């Protein structure tokens, strides 16, 4: 079966993201980011260090992965939970086509609810530095896309994708990422920071990772996550538990 994009799956996916309550959260996260950026700009003025810190610790570390988690699990987990995914799967189309199409929707959500707000927040914090905004936009897109692939795989692996995804973000990316420097080699957020630093040349995002490694690792997660999700979906079990 050839792997392409299915406009029908994209259309259904887009409607399903906003058809559930968690769709509201997608609107909430960028509002918090932009509100906070406005508040800080009002209180501290244009301060490069503060701007980078806020965009990094709130934007790249919290908003981007959470938007990716909400969008991706909202696209896959409910349909798998209630079995309605069978209507997509009982069709003569490649499972990878389904996954790719759903990921496109998820990455689209990341673009609208994380990448654009990140760029806007960067411009609010440092109005005259479009390079910083571009850097955080590209970093957010790369990190968000990798997170989407990761959470897509999680969604087909377990019924508790949201909880495990949150734990992963909290423990691995948050807690251990801050304590153990070695985690950077296996941290999507740290790769996103390295990519941001590379694009926003001249701004110190303080990431000790080569951009080559960060881009390569991001691509590996994106491709591997997509492929493994499709593979797992091929073995979807209608009767539930293994």
């Amino acid at each position, binding site marked *: 079966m050839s792997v392409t994009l299915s406009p029908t799956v994209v259309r259904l996916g887009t*409607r399903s993201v906003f058809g559930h309550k968690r769709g509201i959260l997608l609107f909430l996260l960028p509002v918090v980011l932009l509100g906070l950026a406005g508040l800080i700009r009002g209180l501290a003025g244009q301060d490069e260090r503060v701007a980078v810190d806020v965009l990094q610790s709130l934007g790249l570390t919290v908003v981007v992965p959470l938007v990716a988690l909400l969008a991706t699990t909202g696209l896959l987990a409910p349909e798998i939970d209630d079995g309605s995914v069978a209507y997509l799967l009982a069709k003569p189309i490649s499972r990878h086509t389904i996954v790719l199409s759903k990921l496109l929707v998820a990455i689209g959500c990341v673009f609208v609810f994380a990448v654009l707000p990140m760029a806007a927040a960067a411009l609010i914090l440092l109005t005259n530095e479009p390079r910083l905004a571009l850097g955080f936009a590209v970093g957010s897109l790369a990190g968000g896309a990798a997170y989407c692939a990761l959470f897509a795989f999680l969604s087909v692996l377990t019924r508790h994708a949201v909880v495990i995804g949150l734990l992963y973000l909290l423990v691995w990316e948050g807690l251990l990422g801050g304590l153990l420097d070695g985690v950077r080699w296996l941290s999507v957020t740290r790769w996103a920071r390295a990519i941001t630093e590379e694009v926003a040349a001249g701004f110190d995002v303080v990431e000790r990772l080569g951009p080559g490694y960060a881009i390569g690792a991001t691509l590996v997660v994106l491709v591997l996550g997509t492929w493994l999700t499709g593979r797992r979906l091929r*073995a979807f079990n209608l009767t539930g538990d293994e």
Partner: protein
Amino acid sequence: MSTIQLDHVSRWYRNVVAVNDVSMTIGPGVTGLLGPNGAGKSTLIALMSGFLAPSTGTVTLDGEPLWRNESVYRQVGLVPEREALFDYLTGRQFVVANAELHGLSDPAAAAQAAIALVEMTDAQDRTISTYSKGMRQRIKMASSLVHEPSVLLLDEPFNGMDPRQRMHLMDLLRRMGTEGRTVLFSSHILEEVEQVARQIEVVVAGRHAASGDFGAIRRLMTDRPNRFVLRTADDRRLASVLVADPSVRGVLLRTEGGIEVEAGDFGRFSEALPKLARQEGVRLLEVTPTDESLESVFAYLVSS
């Protein structure tokens, strides 16, 4: 013309056996998959629709394996038992989406035809979340028929339908069967199955208990020993004549009152009982079958 073949298929979940060494051939026409709840019917349908891998044995459609083979869905239509659908869509949008996913050249026309077939044209523009159970069932049918499959698998399709919808679906299945399609549906109600299917496959506790046309299955099920409890005006007197009747295998006078009767031939016993009671002048106060549950019928089938 398509044929599904199960060859020594077993499926277990850890240490629980859901389907145990089942071999059956489902050919053109309507086949009823009959069995009590938890007998393994849904597992069998999942195996036949490529949504479950057999632990051992093979499941094929015209010689092609069903597991991990997306191309079989060109021929297969599946109506799952679970009710979850894309509730945020209208019925029409849902069926059109199914037609598009099948890659049909004119999805809108195919969807209209399928919706008309299940008599949902009037409700097609309402969102699925507002549908009754029966309407959901019908829109599921439409989505599985939209590509005119040669094989149609339905898991408990009559659940939640009112009598009129039931009759309509039965007609539809019969028609599809006479068109030469391979139609298999599961049910736990014998009367439901025998109204539609000539061929019946009975599964009990994961095992293939019986197979044949509905007449043979009906005989198997009704010619078994039946137990009754009778309350009468004179238990001892009626018991003495019942025990002499050839339709009765055994009689027990219950200490708490009443007679327990085991009838060997249900048909003859039901004719003989009122006659004997009248002839002896014993008034029958109550006749209660004690093991009429479907499980006991199936248990008998398995042991025979």
